[in-house]
């Protein structure tokens, strides 16, 4: 519908919308996060939900204790290699549509532990991440900004066509392989269908 006509109609008291907008408006304002934290970023996540920052303003007040009831996974904290299979399994147990926010330096890249032997160098090696937030830890404002970015992303998704979200595309995967804990490292070290390492240049 033409934006100008729509604006004129609304001035006359006629509200017009599309099914797509209505559907996405409903979805983006009731994103329920999964209640789980991995390290210090989780403390900031908790602070974001409390009265001062009040994530409930964005329709995310209900942190669900079960992945079956959650729409959003906030990976808040260091993902150790030992914890990685459990994080991927929790993600697989969430119903579509589902989204991931990687919160903090550790969740996006391994952070200060990147060169260690026991920390995953970013959760995007195993599950698709929608929004990355840098920071160590990110302030609640940063998490709210990430949340609003995610809302904009949801609002911009088409219901049909090649850009439709994963849950409306029967060919797209909704589960991702859970890595195994091997004798020296997690196997495989990354899901190459999702993520390819950056080419190292001198």
């Amino acid at each position, binding site marked *: 519908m033409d934006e100008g006509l729509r604006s004129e109609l609304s001035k006359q008291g006629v509200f017009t919308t599309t099914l797509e907008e209505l559907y996405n408006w409903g979805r983006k304002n009731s994103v329920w996060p999964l209640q789980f934290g991995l390290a210090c970023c989780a403390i900031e996540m908790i602070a974001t939900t409390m009265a001062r920052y009040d994530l409930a303003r964005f329709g995310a007040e209900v942190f669900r204790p079960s992945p079956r009831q959650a729409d959003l996974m906030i990976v808040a904290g260091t993902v150790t290699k030992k914890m990685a299979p459990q994080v991927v399994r929790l993600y697989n147990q969430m119903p579509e549509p589902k989204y991931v926010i990687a919160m903090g330096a550790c969740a996006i890249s391994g952070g200060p532990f990147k060169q260690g032997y026991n920390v995953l160098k970013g959760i995007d090696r195993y599950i698709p991440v929608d929004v990355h937030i840098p920071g160590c830890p990110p302030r609640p404002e940063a998490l709210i900004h990430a949340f609003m970015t995610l809302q904009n992303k949801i609002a911009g998704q088409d219901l049909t066509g090649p850009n439709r979200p994963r849950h409306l595309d029967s060919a797209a995967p909704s589960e991702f392989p859970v890595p195994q*804990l091997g004798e020296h490292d997690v196997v495989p070290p990354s899901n190459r269908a999702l993520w390819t390492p950056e080419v190292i240049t001198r």
Partner: protein
Amino acid sequence: MPMESLEQIKARAEAAIAGVCLTIVQNESPCAQHSLLVDGGHALQLAEFLRDDPALRLDFCSNVTGVDWPEKVEKVKTKVKKIVDGVEKEIEETTEKRSGGYLEVVYHLYSMSQKQGPVVVRLRTGNRADQANLPSLTPVWRSCEFQEREIYDLYGVIFDGHPDLRRILMWDGFKDHPMRRDYVEPDDYEYEPTPHDDVLDKAKAHYPSPPSAN
């Protein structure tokens, strides 16, 4: 009343425990916190002595830690005067000095009832491979349990008599001991914007090979 010196403790322990082999390991740093090295065979008896002795009453083990001492060969040059062909000459001799080649476990003991401590006790394994066994002191101080599990996990010291010796930080199927000096970590280097020190060495190993001259 101040706590007795380490020499006094050593003398009394040697009198109380038959056949115990105790050595005082000097700490050269300004803190001068010397420690008591005990042989593995008598460690449990020494622990019980330190805990039950009425003057010491070291009833609390605050910290257990591991140290890896890989085998090290140092060449020491010494000048020796020798008579060669009837003429006295100064000749440099090199001798090899071997040290290390064992794993060490350090216990820090305090007394809650006597308000004294710490007494530092060290145990050394026979070597770093097949003789990495030491007696567990968990039966004496319960607080050693998780820390001995951690040392088993990260250094590979096997504690005999430990009630539940499993890995605590790494997963069960893990084979290596990451805190050992010769641990080789998985080769999973990724791009780093400003590598330096050890990371720079890792980065160099992963740089693409330079294009050939022609």
